[in-house]
């Protein structure tokens, strides 16, 4: 006989996976009894009665026992842990009563958490999100702004600057550096570095590593010991030191690297050493691959105008730093170096033009602290990172408020337990300590998880720092930060329930009533916290809105050119020993070949693309005695067509603008407007780069260095007439279809001419992205954190309203039985929710007005108190918050009055 239907009917649902099996097994058991009874001669009725009699009448208990028996974790470790936790703790004795008390508190707390896994998980995950976000951003702040260089005694390092009367810092010429190094040697060990473009080949390997020219004392002054081989010595000739990463990736960590021959820019070099793994030079955010001696500069650089560079008095290109000698104070050393500088200036004055001599005379030497190196990342990303730090700080506060609310609700539910403990003699201090132990344990767990989360996401975040290399490994400072944040977080969210617990009034708690003074069912503190959350979320949402609109505005801004469909190929044949004539011939040939490729609409050359690099010189305009600065572009014929820049007047450059013909230039509208106010500028002459040139065309205004700037004076000079100091050019290719598809074809054309020439291919669109790296970083992250804040806040709001509805069930029941309609109840609850939100929105708006001044510089094309953004953010928040409140409100309106009256 099949007893399964009977068992299923009489056993409450178990709600576990193997329920069917259990039912079958029990049914089988009953069947055995039945079969045996029948065998013993009983009739069906009696046998059936005996069988079902085996199933206990209290089926609930059986169901519970079955459920726990089959769902307890299988691990005996867990059983043992639980058993251990349930053991009574011996009363505090011996030398460390404090310690054993603490241990007891910890065990008590852990036991409570194990019993409430859902609550514990919710709290820990909320905290991990908040703390993790802070750790991630702080890791970047630390790496970009706070960390000292991984060198010996970084605090003894200074950056040496030449300041003009306006306080602007200048770099140094090589003769200046040599003079300072020789004559200020008693107080400082001065060293210099400068970037250089390199082309490396070694066997089958060809690459274009990031090169750094360094003075021979660079490594010794920094106190950096190579991990393999040695650093530079004064007697060194053509030798190079590799970065650890370059050695690992390009030479597969070859242990015999020292002594290996490589070719750099066509010259034979010997590798003599490998720098330590974490050493990245002194410029934070950059990471040179190959270090070469400064003295070899002129042999490494291509011939051409500007060469040789080393003896030049008027080329300022070296970054100079110094290590203070022992027992020397920075201010004295700076004063002494300043004297030496002016001494050198007067000694070299005979060889200078009067203008240069005057320029140098006005300047003085200053030292800036160099422990953290020089900052390229800090300048660009410092402010955005600080804004983001504030953002994640707010997110953490919101998370704290959420957790505090959860704890408050739980504390209200645990009032009886706390009262019992108080009645049994637990003092107020003890109860407080217990509360804080719980909070700190939760925040420690959240912090540990947050650290993992932060370490992982900071690595992902470095993707936003385009072309920058940052060492984001966890260090002691990040660890300390996370610990401190976790502890503060624990104290912050733990304060609310702790104070509540300490105030517990015994009698009403035992009766299960709300204590009259704490008005427990309304959670006044909880409501305050929720309003605060709403306010902070609104601030974050408004911020996110402003930053996103900034990014959108910048993307939509009319830059004057059309960069979509443009592919860039950057080459430098000079690095592989081309003479200037060979270089020109090479480019002419390449341009012809690429223009012939199918799918190419037009192609042209420029010394560098717009938005990357700048070349500024003086500008003087004929018939107007004004002079000012101008940005320069050196371009070939067809550049404006390729970049989609409109020619407003005159003509484009052509092949007939060569070195023998009349010198010509094209100006932008800004110059035309500023200096020719309505007159025709064509045919007029301007002076720039030391030459007089005739204006033959006027083109539309375009952005030059970045998308934010107001368009500068821009003068375009034809490539065949301009003397360029570098042989590097960028080939611009406008394609008919997707430009990325042209990359292979362009590379093929370059390699058909010279298979050893490295070529760097970019899309102009990527250049725009790179240019907007900062804005993308802020917009993306503030958007993400704004969303997170909104989510946390709506959860918090839902929690508080749901809790209040639950506590007011009886009241709602009474109201309804007295005739209040469902709509009235719905509105009553919703009104409570809206009041909290309204208060929060008002506070948030006020705070936003006040805070907006700090982000004005970060915005573009949008007012910091832009009404549209404010309204959108507030509406979004109100809608989401109302939804969060609507769910419990609806539940309240569905309450059956009779059931409600019996509850509580």
């Amino acid at each position, binding site marked *: 006989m099949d007893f399964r239907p009977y068992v299923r009917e009489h056993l409450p649902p178990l709600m576990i996976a193997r329920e069917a099996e*259990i039912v079958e097994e*029990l049914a*089988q*058991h009953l069947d055995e009894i039945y079969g045996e009874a029948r065998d013993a001669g009983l009739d069906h009725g009696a046998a059936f009665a005996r069988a079902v009699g085996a199933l206990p009448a209290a089926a609930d208990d059986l169901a519970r*026992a079955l459920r726990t*028996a*089959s769902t307890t974790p299988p691990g*005996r470790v867990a059983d043992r842990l639980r058993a251990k936790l349930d053991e009574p703790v011996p009363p505090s004795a011996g030398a460390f009563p404090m310690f054993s008390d603490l241990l007891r508190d910890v065990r008590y707390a852990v036991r409570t958490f194990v019993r409430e896994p859902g609550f514990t998980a919710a709290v820990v995950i909320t905290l991990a999100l908040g703390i993790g976000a802070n750790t991630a951003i702080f890791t970047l702040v630390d790496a970009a702004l706070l960390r000292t260089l991984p060198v010996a005694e970084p605090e003894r390092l200074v950056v040496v600057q030449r300041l003009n009367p306006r306080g602007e810092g200048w770099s140094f010429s090589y003769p200046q550096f040599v003079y300072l190094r020789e004559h200020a040697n008693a107080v400082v060990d001065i060293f210099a570095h400068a970037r250089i473009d390199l082309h490396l080949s070694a066997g089958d390997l060809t690459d274009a590593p990031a090169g750094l020219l360094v003075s021979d004392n660079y490594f010794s002054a920094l106190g950096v010991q190579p991990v393999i081989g040695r650093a530079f010595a004064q007697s060194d000739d053509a030798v190079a030191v590799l970065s650890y990463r370059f050695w690992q990736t390009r030479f597969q960590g070859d242990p015999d690297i020292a002594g290996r021959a490589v070719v750099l820019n066509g010259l034979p070099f010997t590798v003599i050493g490998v720098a330590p793994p974490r050493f990245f030079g002194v410029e934070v955010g950059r990471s040179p691959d190959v270090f070469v001696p400064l003295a070899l500069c002129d042999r490494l650089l291509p011939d051409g105008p500007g060469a040789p560079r080393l003896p030049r008095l008027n080329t300022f290109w070296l970054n100079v730093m110094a290590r203070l000698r022992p027992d020397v104070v920075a201010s004295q050393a700076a004063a002494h170096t300043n004297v030496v500088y002016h001494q050198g200036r007067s000694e070299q004055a005979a060889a200078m033009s009067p203008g240069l001599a005057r320029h140098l005379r006005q300047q003085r030497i200053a030292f800036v602290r160099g422990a953290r190196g020089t900052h390229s990342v800090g300048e660009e990303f410092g402010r955005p990172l600080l804004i983001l730090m504030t953002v994640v700080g707010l997110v953490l506060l919101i998370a704290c408020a959420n957790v505090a609310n959860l704890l408050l609700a739980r504390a209200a539910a645990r009032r009886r337990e706390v009262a019992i403990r108080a009645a049994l003699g637990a003092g107020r201090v003890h109860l407080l300590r217990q509360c804080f132990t719980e909070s700190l344990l939760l925040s420690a767990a959240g912090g540990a998880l947050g650290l993992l989360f932060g370490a992982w996401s900071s690595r992902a975040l470095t993707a936003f720092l385009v072309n920058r290399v940052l060492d984001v490994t966890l260090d002691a400072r990040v660890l300390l930060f996370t610990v401190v944040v976790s502890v503060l977080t624990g104290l912050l969210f733990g304060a609310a329930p702790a104070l509540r617990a300490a105030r517990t009034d015994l009698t009403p708690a035992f009766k299960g009533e709300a204590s009259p003074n704490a008005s427990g069912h309304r959670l006044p503190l909880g409501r305050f916290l929720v309003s605060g959350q709403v306010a902070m979320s609104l601030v974050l949402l408004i911020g996110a809105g402003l930053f996103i609109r900034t990014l959108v505005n910048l993307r939509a801004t009319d830059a004057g050119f059309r960069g979509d469909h443009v592919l860039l190929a950057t080459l430098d044949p000079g690095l592989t020993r081309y003479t200037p004539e060979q270089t020109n011939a090479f480019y002419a040939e390449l341009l012809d070949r690429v223009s012939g490729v199918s799918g190419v609409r037009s192609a042209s050359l420029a010394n560098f693309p717009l938005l990357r690099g700048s070349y500024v010189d003086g500008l003087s305009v004929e018939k107007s005695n004004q002079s000012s600065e101008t940005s320069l572009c050196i371009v070939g014929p067809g550049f404006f067509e390729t970049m989609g820049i409109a020619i407003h007047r005159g003509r484009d450059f052509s092949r007939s603008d060569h070195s023998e013909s009349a010198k010509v230039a094209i100006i932008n509208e800004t110059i035309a407007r500023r200096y020719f106010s309505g007159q025709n500028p064509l045919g007029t002459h301007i002076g720039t780069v030391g030459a007089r040139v005739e204006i033959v065309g006027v083109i539309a205004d375009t952005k030059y260095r970045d998308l934010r700037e107001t368009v500068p004076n821009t003068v375009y000079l034809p490539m065949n007439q301009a003397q360029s100091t570098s042989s590097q050019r960028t080939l611009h290719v406008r394609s008919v279809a997707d430009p990325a598809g042209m990359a292979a074809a362009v590379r093929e054309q370059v390699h058909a001419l010279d298979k050893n020439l490295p070529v760097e291919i970019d899309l102009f669109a990527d250049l725009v992205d790179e240019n907007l790296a900062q804005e993308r970083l802020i917009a993306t992250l503030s958007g993400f954190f704004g969303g997170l804040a909104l989510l946390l806040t709506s959860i918090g709001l839902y929690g508080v309203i749901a809790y209040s509805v639950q506590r007011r069930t009886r009241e709602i029941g009474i109201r309804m039985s007295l005739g209040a309609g469902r709509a009235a109840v719905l509105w009553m609850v919703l009104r409570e929710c809206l009041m909290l939100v309204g208060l929060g929105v008002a506070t948030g708006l006020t705070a936003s007005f006040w805070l907006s001044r700090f982000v004005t510089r970060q915005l573009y094309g949008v007012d910091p108190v832009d009404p549209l953004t404010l309204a959108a953010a507030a509406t979004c928040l109100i809608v989401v918050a109302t939804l969060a409140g609507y769910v419990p409100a609806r539940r309240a309106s569905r309450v059956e009055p009779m059931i409600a009256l019996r509850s509580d």
Partner: protein
Amino acid sequence: MVLSTIERRARHGYEIAKLIDQQSDGVLRFHIASLYPMLYRMERRGWIDGTWIEKAGQRRRRYYRLTPAGRKILAEQRSTWRELLTALQKVAGLEPGR
């Protein structure tokens, strides 16, 4: 006790209950309410292993077998019981076999 019933061969739940009932002359009786939760708990702890076995002409039954871990526990418990019994005998002045 339950473990000892399946020491030699695998048995199903009803058989275990019946065996204990018979071997203790009806003094010890296991009800469904205590037997099956206990079996499931021991199974979770890895002391016993239950498998469905179908024999010709019968509905399938769940047979429980002792695992090596269960064997160890059984040995431990046997010695504990033995010690307890010895102690009881000494204290209460019971003589075995009388």
